[in-house]
């Protein structure tokens, strides 16, 4: 009896491996990539600098919060901070985000191409040249690597080995995100890992659920087989 079960289990394991084996290999290969690559490196921490700036001690801005409220009466939040070495206010209002100089009160946003390149260069920790600076407005034309981040965005490309791209918000002037080849591979691996080939974000998709279920059955059957393969004592076959 046990012999028959072991035979069936082996058959199932074999056929199931044929059905789900390719995806299991993709899980393993992409899994290996994702665990081997240091996550900070993938995030591009090595590409950036000046990420935690502070205001000068005892700093007194020329333009005060009350001044800002006079200029932007519908603001819901105002933040005094440092941006590319100068003091600025970031204003949230129904009309969007704005970047305002805390020294002159002049609204800096929306950023020009030169401003955006300045921001990118200020945070870029390398010396490579900027090869392109593009304002992304249309969702259709935006690369998938910005994921769900709202447009518009400046995309600044650098001439380095990782084809680094920095994304800068024209509205609040901040460095929104950075991308490089290893991140792009990681993202592709993640897509294959979670089997969401469209948005690369939905871990609840049906395909993944079914595949993971089959993978689980495959592994359990495999372990069941081990029980037969390593069993030392056999029952009487008479």
């Amino acid at each position, binding site marked *: 009896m046990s*012999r*028959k*079960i*072991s*035979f069936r289990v082996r*058959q199932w394991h*074999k056929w199931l*491996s044929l059905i789900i*084996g390719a995806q*299991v*290999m993709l*899980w*393993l290969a992409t*899994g*290996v990539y*994702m*665990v*081997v690559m*240091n*996550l900070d490196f993938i995030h591009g921490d090595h590409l950036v600098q000046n990420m*935690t*700036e*502070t*205001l000068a*001690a*005892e*700093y*007194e801005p020329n333009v005060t*919060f009350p001044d800002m*409220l006079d200029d932007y*009466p*519908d*603001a*819901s*939040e*105002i*933040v*005094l*901070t*440092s941006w590319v070495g100068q003091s600025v206010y970031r204003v949230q209002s129904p009309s969007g985000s704005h970047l305002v100089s805390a020294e002159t009160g002049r609204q800096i946003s929306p950023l020009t191409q030169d401003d955006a390149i300045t921001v990118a260069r200020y945070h870029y920790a390398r010396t490579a040249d900027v090869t392109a600076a593009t304002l992304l407005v249309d969702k259709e034309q935006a690369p998938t690597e910005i994921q769900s981040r709202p447009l518009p965005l400046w995309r600044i490309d650098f001439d380095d080995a990782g084809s680094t791209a920095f994304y800068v918000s024209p509205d609040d002037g901040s460095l929104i995100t950075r991308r490089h080849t290893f991140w792009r591979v990681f993202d592709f691996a993640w897509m294959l890992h979670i089997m969401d080939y469209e948005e690369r974000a939905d*871990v*609840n998709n049906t395909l*993944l*659920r079914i595949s*993971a279920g089959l*993978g*689980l059955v495959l592994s359990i059957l*495999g*372990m069941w*087989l081990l029980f*037969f*393969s*390593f*069993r*030392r*004592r*056999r029952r*009487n*076959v*008479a």
Partner: protein
Amino acid sequence: MMTIIRQGHKWIALILGIQVALWMLSGLGMAILPHSKVAGDHRMAEPAAPTPLTELAGGKIGQPATIGPGEIREVRLRNLNGRAVFDTVTAERSALTSAVTGETITVDKPLAAEIALKDYSGPGEIKEIRLLAESTLEIRNHAPPAWRIDFSDPEQTSLYVSASNGEILERRNNYWRTFDVFWMVHIMDYVSRSSFNHPLIILSALVVLWLGFSGIALWWDSFRRNDFNVVGKWRSRKQTFALSLADSEGGAIRTVEARPMQSLFAAMGDQGYPLPSTCGGGGTCGLCRVRIGTELPILPADRRQIPDSELESGYRLACQHQVTSPLSVTLPHGLMDAKEIKGKVVSSSFITPDMYELRLSLPEPLEFRAGSYVQVEIPPFMSSLDALDLTDFIKTQWENSGAARTFGSNVLIYRTYSLANAPEEFGNEVVLSIRLAFPKSSAPGVSVGVGSAYLLTLKKGDTVQLRGPFGDFHIDEDAEEIVFIGGGAGIAPIRSMILDQLKVKRTSSRISFWYGARTQEHIAYKEDLEALATAHPNFSWHVALSDVPETDNWPGARGQIHEFVRDQYIISHPDLATCSFYICGPPQMLEAVLSLLKSLNVPNSRIAFDDFGN
């Protein structure tokens, strides 16, 4: 190669199989848990339209008392539950002051509750509020202190409010908690549950990647082209093929109907004739070996488990071959009735320089035909040269060969040995004459025979698991004259058959035994044979030594046994047609004798051989 891959696949699976299953299970778990509930979005109130700051404070917003001193990152003027506040952020913390009065605002219990209630949407009410001075797993990416506000909803929502700036840090619930356990298991970071770049998971992932590759490689070994013949299978779904089952003695033919397109092993199991197997059809235990016919292809697993001479005569592994036509299946005699027997070692002693007699005591006398063999279980073991009681000759050879001193096997294997005693010769004891295949300096790199070495490690009283008896090698009842030709350890079944013929069957047929050995010392059972020759005029035995120096005092014949028997007996034999030949010995000898007999046109029906004796 495939065997190594299969073994590697099994052993890695043994070590990391649980982790693979856990990856699958946790992955499945995370795929099933709905992400919006895990994130707690379903218990979050719709955010209200942002209120202009000017409306909050009635236009009375001032300037923060001081900006600094120290490393201030930013000062946020924002809305904290209807209050305009300045939130001064440094590297370490945030501090709140009223944007109207400049007073310090402390996020106390009532305020934390108020913030949480505003954020929450659901059937629950606040159950408990606690201040956490230290970070916990649920707020592992945030700096303490924080308020934990537990709600009484079914999923046990907990909102975390920063005690320094009043922001909602996390929305946790039982969906998230379950997800987080899956996550922990998936990334194998059981303490901080946050890093997947640690050595444990890197190593596991790489090893399991190999498991995957080896599994894929095994496809080539595990699938047959016919497995994919879906159309053929569908067409023939109602068809059946006749399987003619015959015992190797040729009698007792049973014919059963088999469904097509399944392995012979499966078909026989379905028909109520389960073949022995411990691997379940993986082609790795060799127990389901039957004789099907030479027209079937020889598959890699067949080649691994079955000696060439048997492959040529049509032996195959039943688990490896599909039923695609009616088949005649010859089962080794005793296969269906083979018994599991537990033997105990009685004694173990060398009878030639490289052959030892293992005497086993069985629970009851074993019924068998002379010439039969038993299958012996060799469990996983490790041992070394130092544990063996060997002659200096073997020890020196072994040491000079450069082969490892240690030996063993990490899997269960089987070895077959012929029974050297005649039936009922020693009551409930049986004798196996086993040649120790030991490393020699003349053949460097060849390691010790695992089965023969294992059995030599056994001491008196140790148990040995046997299966059997099996045997196709037996004396034809109507043989007029019997010619035994044997070499080396091939003497074992021949001894059994000679004794059986002379002492039990009391045959009057003429019997001669032509024995090839290397040196005088290698002649086994010399006294037994001499005594038999004296007592039975119809029996004679003859030895040729192949490996004696010129100076040796050996008075007898020298040379290869097949040449010796040819020149001394067969060529001058008056009526070769009356002879039946029984041959057992090492492969080269067997081959030489078989081609000799073929050249003399001796029909196959008059030749029986067994190369298990080696």
